[in-house]
């Protein structure tokens, strides 16, 4: 990974590992929850970390505010080393980092306003300042009428909005969102993601978002890191990762929302209906597959689109098409060669 670290870097992971030791003395178990991660999170971006459960993404985000100490490597947040700090030394750093949770983790003994006010009380704000700030935040998350309600009187989406307001109370630079929409239905998820987008765009707060849903990444993230068994297997802008997934895990995630590549059992069905040579062609807005294909028609090659789809992300289109090519062997071969010059082509095994 290249060293592009600069003043724009807010969180800096360098060879960070987190090891848990468990099991018994006789059969010790060592788990590399986070394995040698080097990563830069840039000021102002929405950075998503995606992975299956157990991939280490939740641990990774907990390292940032020191809820879990790192085992080795170095970790900086806004220029402060987080590693090697005691709970007391971490307090001022944590006040600059908000956090929201999958289960919201609201204080049931406090009202909505009380929840939002709590971190301000601990930070020693005066009652007038607290009142002003709480009013402001309630307005921002659209819960002014709910100020005096208790958490159990709220819907899931409203609870998460309280969580967001509470996390924003003491004006953090960074917001950590740990599976913040996983307990919500699709509609509420979009509502909460919309709010997070506003937090990022209007307040300029950097967001690190943990999720196992590619849909969440697609709708909100500027960049994404894919985690698998503790390692970051791929990092890139969301559109790049969707358009050119490199790692196997990434491909699985992308296909979970894109479904442009036929599954094993679908290939058999496709082959039954399309006797020609089957190829998978990546489509992006830079390449001109259409013109190559129309040129090939002159050589006697015909094609049919057997499977696939094209989608748009961050105003770039991309997708995969499964084509069935028919015609003289050499002409078909020639077509494939010419397609390879402009895009990624994969032959579907016979």
């Amino acid at each position, binding site marked *: 990974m290249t060293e592009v670290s600069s003043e724009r870097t807010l969180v800096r992971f360098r060879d960070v590992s987190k090891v848990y030791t468990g099991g018994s003395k006789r059969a010790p178990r060592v788990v590399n929850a986070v394995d040698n991660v080097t990563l830069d999170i840039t000021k102002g971006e929405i950075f998503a970390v995606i992975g299956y459960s157990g991939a280490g993404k939740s641990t990774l985000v907990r390292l940032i*505010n020191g*809820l879990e100490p790192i085992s080795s490597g170095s970790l900086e947040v806004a220029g402060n080393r987080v590693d090697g700090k005691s*709970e*007391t030394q*971490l*307090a*001022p*750093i*944590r*006040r600059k*980092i*908000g*956090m929201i*949770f999958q*289960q919201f*983790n*609201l*204080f*049931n*003994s*406090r009202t909505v306003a009380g929840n939002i006010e*709590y*971190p301000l*009380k*601990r*930070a020693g704000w005066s009652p007038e300042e607290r009142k002003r700030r709480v009013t402001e935040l309630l307005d921002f998350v659209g819960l002014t009428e709910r100020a005096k309600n*208790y958490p*159990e009187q709220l819907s899931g989406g409203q609870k998460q909005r309280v969580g967001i307001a*509470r996390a924003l109370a*003491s004006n953090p630079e960074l917001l*950590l969102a740990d599976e913040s929409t996983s307990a919500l239905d699709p509609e509420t998820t979009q509502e909460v993601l919309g709010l997070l987008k506003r937090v990022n765009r209007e307040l300029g707060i950097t967001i690190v978002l943990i999720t196992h849903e590619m849909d969440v990444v697609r709708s909100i993230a500027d960049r994404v890191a894919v985690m698998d068994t503790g390692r970051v297997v791929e990092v890139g802008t969301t559109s790049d990762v969707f358009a050119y997934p490199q790692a196997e895990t990434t491909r699985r995630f992308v296909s979970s929302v894109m479904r442009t590549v036929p599954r094993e059992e679908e290939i058999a069905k496709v082959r039954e209906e399309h006797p020609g040579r089957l190829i998978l062609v990546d489509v992006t807005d830079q390449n001109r597959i259409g013109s190559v294909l129309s040129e090939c028609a002159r050589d006697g090659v015909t094609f049919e689109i057997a499977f696939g789809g094209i989608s748009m992300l961050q105003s770039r289109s991309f997708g995969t098409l499964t084509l069935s090519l028919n015609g003289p062997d050499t002409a078909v071969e020639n077509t494939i060669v010419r397609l390879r010059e402009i895009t990624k082509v994969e032959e579907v095994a016979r």
Partner: protein
Amino acid sequence: MDWSVLGPQLLSATGETLYMVAVTLLLAGFIGLVVGVGLYVTRRGNILENTAVFTALNLLVNFIRPIPFIILLAALGQATEAVVGTRLGPNAAIFAMTIGATFAVARIVEQNLMSVDPGVVEAARSMGVSRFKIITTVILPEALGPLVLGYTFLVIGITDMSAMAGAIGAGGLGDFALRLGYQRFNDEVTWAAVIVIIILVQLVQFFGNWLARKIMRR
């Protein structure tokens, strides 16, 4: 049966019982709260994880708790005399009752705190709240409803203890029932004490339930 003599005696016995229960509740309630919080926070994986302290507290609680109170009373005789100056009377009983009740309180506090969602503790940590403040402003308030019910349950246990302390001349309703009722084969007197105790316990339980309901908003 001369209730013109027994009546005032019953009244002062009730007063003594209330006094013993109240002082014990205050002392054991506070010390037990500290020990219970100590057990909770030093437990593995908790905010002040400390195996040595946890093991020591846990052993202490397990050591005292199983001793039947009537035996604890007798066993603590010398210590009571050293601390209170006498083995007789309500204050002597309060000493033994406080020791006995403290560890019961500790366990009940520990168990109720364990029902607090670790997520809210994590949320408070993520805000940079100190561990002491997490205990006083998050853990205890979040567990307040169940704690009130736990303490209510304990008041009844302490009332029971105070009656037993009557056996060593502590005064109170237990003493009244034993000395003036049981030993004189006068069931009417015994039952009079029983009825007063039932009324006291009902009142405490009613108040405790009401308070817990109010706190938990149910």
